[in-house]
């Protein structure tokens, strides 16, 4: 047992840290997804990483991956979170990519993978439907074969950033006669295909991150089918189980703890600062303790991954505890800013925007961020579902 990183890993950390410092676009520093970004803002860092060959660390080297070790990937994730870079959008790189290189035809691989890497195609995910949230297999969007095409009808929801997307990958029902999981196929669609409309969903923080996507008699060429017809559920499950690393968000939360402490150090409480308030300091300490435990749990998972054991259902633990910490952080940040959490300054409501904030800069986003983060325990398999998984898969109940 040893806590120290190997010298080559230390050198690697130095290398990526320098790279980020020197290459991350100045105008994006400190911004997050909800900062009213343009499409090009989202892609700027993606393109830089593509040039460097670092856009898809999780991919096999032959398809354009980095060939990094588990530890290196972990370090990369940590450094990105610490530097608060906008993460590369996961829909193409982390979700679709692995499905393509694992299950798709050679032609599809040749066509789609490079375009994902370069950022030429912006993908979005068509999984959830209004009627099927946690129960994904109960979907109702239908694709009916008609010559060289499928005719698709239905709707998808919670489609993140679909407003910028070029393509959407969808789960569709191609056989309604068999039980839920068996009649599902995995289909790729150009989002400009007639019959596809994207309707914004405004969430309670006032932001437009997600959408509903309506599919009305959409004609999709059969060559856009990935793998075999009616085998889509296998690919979907593969995708959901894939690339859980970083799911705990430890490095990001550590960064947020520092920010919270800075805020609490500036806020007054009585004759001192809020950080000097014993109640608040205690809550911060409790949070740090939980985060430290989570960090070491993640490191233990990492160690067993390095030893060749794939990430098992223990990943659910990282998701649950990780999101709980993230949510508490937004909660405590809102608490820290006091009455200045009330103002809701609309528009591209961010630090550094041209709208003059009410109260301190750091207070502007406290409320919306708190509201927005309620999704963390809902999306990606709600925390209740994660507990079901652990009960079954880990505890054998």
């Amino acid at each position, binding site marked *: 047992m040893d806590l120290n990183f190997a010298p080559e890993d230390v050198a690697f950390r130095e290398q990526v840290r320098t790279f980020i410092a020197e290459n991350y676009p100045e105008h994006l520093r400190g911004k997050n997804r909800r900062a009213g970004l343009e499409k090009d803002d989202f892609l700027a860092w993606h393109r830089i990483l593509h040039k460097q060959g670092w856009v898809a660390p999780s991919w096999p080297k032959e398809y354009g991956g980095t060939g990094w070790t588990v530890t290196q990937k972990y370090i990369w994730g940590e450094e990105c979170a610490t530097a608060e870079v906008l993460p590369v959008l996961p829909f193409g790189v982390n979700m679709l990519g692995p499905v393509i290189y694992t299950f798709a035809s050679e032609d599809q691989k040749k066509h789609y993978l490079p375009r994902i890497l370069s950022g030429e195609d912006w993908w979005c995910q068509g999984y959830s439907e209004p009627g099927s*949230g946690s*129960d994904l297999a109960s979907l109702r969007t239908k694709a009916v074969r008609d010559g060289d095409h499928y005719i698709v009808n239905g709707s998808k929801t919670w489609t993140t950033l679909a407003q910028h997307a070029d393509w959407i990958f969808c789960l569709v029902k191609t056989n309604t006669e068999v039980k839920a999981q068996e009649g599902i196929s995995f289909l790729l669609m150009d989002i400009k295909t007639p019959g596809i409309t994207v309707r914004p969903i405004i969430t*309670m923080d006032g932001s437009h991150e997600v959408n509903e996507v309506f599919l009305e008699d959409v004609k999709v060429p059969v060559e856009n089918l990935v793998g075999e017809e009616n085998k889509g559920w296998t690919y979907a499950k593969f995708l959901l189980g894939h690339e859980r690393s970083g799911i705990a968000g430890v490095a990001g939360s550590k960064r947020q703890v520092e920010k919270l402490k800075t805020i609490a150090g500036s806020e007054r409480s009585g004759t001192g600062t809020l950080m000097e308030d014993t109640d608040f300091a205690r809550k911060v300490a409790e949070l740090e303790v939980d985060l430290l435990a989570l960090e070491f749990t993640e490191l233990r998972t990492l160690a067993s991954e390095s030893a060749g054991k794939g990430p098992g259902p223990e990943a659910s633990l990282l998701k649950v505890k990780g999101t709980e910490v993230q949510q508490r952080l937004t*909660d405590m940040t809102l608490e820290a800013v006091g009455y200045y959490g009330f103002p809701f300054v609309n528009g591209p409501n961010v630090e550094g925007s041209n709208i003059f904030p009410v*109260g301190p800069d750091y207070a502007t986003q406290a409320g919306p961020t708190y509201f927005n983060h309620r999704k963390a325990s809902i999306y990606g398999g709600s925390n209740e579902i994660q507990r079901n998984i652990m009960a079954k898969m880990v505890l054998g109940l």
Partner: protein
Amino acid sequence: MDFSFTEEQTLLRNTVQRFVQDNYELEARQKIVNSEEGFSRDYWQQLAELGLFMAPFSEELGGMGGSQIETMIIMEEFGRGLVVEPYVPTVVLAGGLLREAGSQAQKDELLPSIIGGETIFAVAYAEPQGRYNLADITTRAEKDGSDFRLNGHKAVVLGAPWANKLIISARTSGGQRDDSGITLFIVDKNTDGVSSRDYPTIDGSRASEIILENVKVSGDAVIGEVDDGLPLLSKIFDEGIAAICAEASGAMRVLNDTTIEYCKTRKQFGMPIGKFQVLQHRMVDMFMECEQSVSMTYMVNLKLDESDVEREKAASAAKVQIGKSGKFIGQNAVQLHGGMGMTDELNVGHYFKRLTMIDTQFGNVDHHLKRYAALDA
């Protein structure tokens, strides 16, 4: 020992209930909230005509002989509808200050116009540095003959964009956090030197930063005694707490009902999600939190006329309960609604946001736990 309502009180509740049902369905509410002004002057006038603003005042003050219980009833129903009209700042806070310590002239001039719906008040007690400490005041009021000159910055004044009159706490003597030396002034919002930056709040209401630059105020505008405003402000604050506890109780009930209804109909894995035991127990916990909050709402509203210590303990205890329960119920109502709970399209998020703000309004859980512990020591 009696927890029943009089016939008049039940009538009052029915009146408010009907108003809210008829006029404050979510779509209508959002239309008001997103309008230029952010509230409805028309509704405000209707509420006045329904007699709601006279309900808590004694007959000699032109009211209906009611008490805080009437306010509690009104606020519960307002909470059920997420009503944004400024009943608390105008009727509860300003009305309460005038009732407690207004001069005869002030009462004669202002109470009828509050009751009639003509005057809207906002009470500017907070300052950027002060957090929840009512005594942490740097706004100065300097004597200028028989007048005062006010300078300072009052923060997050709820309802101020709608108000034509402000009540401002300012320091007439003493150091920054001294209990004595604070005086309350009635200030016309259009007085020279009063400027404001108005903005929406996260729960769909409106507030302002108020900047006072050499604002001239007559000595007649002082409520109560010079230098002795704090105890007065403190008492009215507790009445404000009692009122928003009732509002929160109403909001929690709706959230719980909505969530139970949703879980009975929403199906996943072939059955209503309300059949899953974990969600059932969650809703039971939400139910218990709500019941405890209603109990504490009754408690505080019944104890407002007890001694200062008893009243303050009651207010802090109730505020702690409401803060915790509101957060628990709000967060879980969103969670149980899943993705739908995150959208602006259902009422869930709106209740959650209002409950979130109530947790902070008049001081949060930590503040009131400390206050309670100090009073209890």
